[in-house]
């Protein structure tokens, strides 16, 4: 490490710094590759091989090839459509154009309620019923006080325009 034109470093410091530039560089590269591979894997798994995180009901019914494949669908839970029974809950998921009848195995957790958004993960049957095993609540970006004012769900078409989807 001598002769580089800067203050020469005592040998002890070289040991402390880690033996050899190539090994450190290799370690870094390995870390980078592993990190990128891990993230790509996670992202692809999360996307279920699709390019979008979820489909809308309209997109789902338009693609008959999706029968029997695991897919995630997002929309608004239609007010008045939620029916709970032991072990299942059924509701209608809509994007303002297409209504999707969903039967979910298990009770949804989170703040699931009619008038809010939801993502369902499951299979679309040939009987036009979507059987899901997971419901995620997708709430919007509004924050309101519970002051007795009547809450009206956001217009899904307007929301779609605002967020450019």
């Amino acid at each position, binding site marked *: *490490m001598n002769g*580089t034109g*800067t*203050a*020469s*470093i*005592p040998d002890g*410091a*070289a040991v*402390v*710094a*880690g033996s050899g*530039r190539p090994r*450190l*560089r290799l*370690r*870094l590269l390995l*870390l*980078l590759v592993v*990190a990128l591979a891990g*993230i790509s894997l*996670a*992202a692809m*798994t*999360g*996307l279920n091989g699709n390019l*979008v*995180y*979820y489909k809308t009901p309209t997109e789902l019914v338009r693609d008959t090839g999706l029968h029997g494949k695991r897919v995630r669908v*997002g929309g608004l839970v239609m007010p008045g459509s939620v029916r709970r029974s032991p072990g299942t809950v059924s509701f209608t998921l809509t994007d303002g154009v297409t209504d999707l009848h969903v039967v979910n195995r298990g009770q*949804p*957790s*989170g*703040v*699931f*309620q009619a008038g*809010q958004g939801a*993502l369902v993960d499951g299979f679309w049957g040939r009987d036009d019923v979507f059987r899901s095993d997971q*419901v*995620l*609540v*997708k*709430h*919007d*970006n*509004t*924050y*309101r*006080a*519970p*002051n007795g004012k009547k*809450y009206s769900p956001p217009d899904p078409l307007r929301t779609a325009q*605002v*967020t*450019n*989807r």
Partner: protein
Amino acid sequence: MPRRTDQILGVIASLAAAGTLPIALAVAPPDAVQGQAQRLMYVHVPAAWLAYLAFAAVLLCSIGYLLSRDLRWDRRAQAAAEIGVGMTALAIVLGSLWGRPVWGVWWVWDPRLVTTTVLLLVYVGYLGVRGLSADPHASARRTSAVGILAFVNIPIVHFSVVWWRTLHQPPTLLQPGGSHPIAPGMLAALLASLVTFTLAGIVVYRRRLRQLAARDALLRERFADSSTAATAQEPAPAVLVIPQVFR
């Protein structure tokens, strides 16, 4: 750096925190849809904000080093990056705590959460590439390049909820379109906590910077006797302060 300023800033930050707490816990109403869990917004959002601010500081300090070749800029960038990494990790944890009762899950791999994870890893990597060269200037050059390039992650993370479909909702205050659909009490709590976190971040940054400067000065002193070549520049102390990540 004057210690008096640190003391004053510390007091102001503490007062801000003390003032924010009652607003966040009592004055701000619970959300009509999310309930009390929504109060996590008052720590999750400011943590993310402070992370963005810290990484912007890394960007500026990296440019500062490349323009001036003064190693003090490199030190400032390090202190800022450490805060940024800590705040990103905190934002992720707080977001997870918020997600479980509201979304129904601790985690999803949607574009917002994926890009935030990438952000965290990139800046952990930034801290990891520090001090690899014997020559502190070579090391600082490399680090500054990474610090500038890494900043591209911030707009990607921020706009991920607008560009792509996500479970995470789009921004409330920084919405494209410009409206702020948030109740006044909640807005007050959020702004108060943003101010608090920013002040606290500045206080921690200054203390860390002081610590880094003292350590470099100490190492400079130690090797001033044992170096055989005389130089006017700061000698090699940056080499020895490799972050614990690689020990």
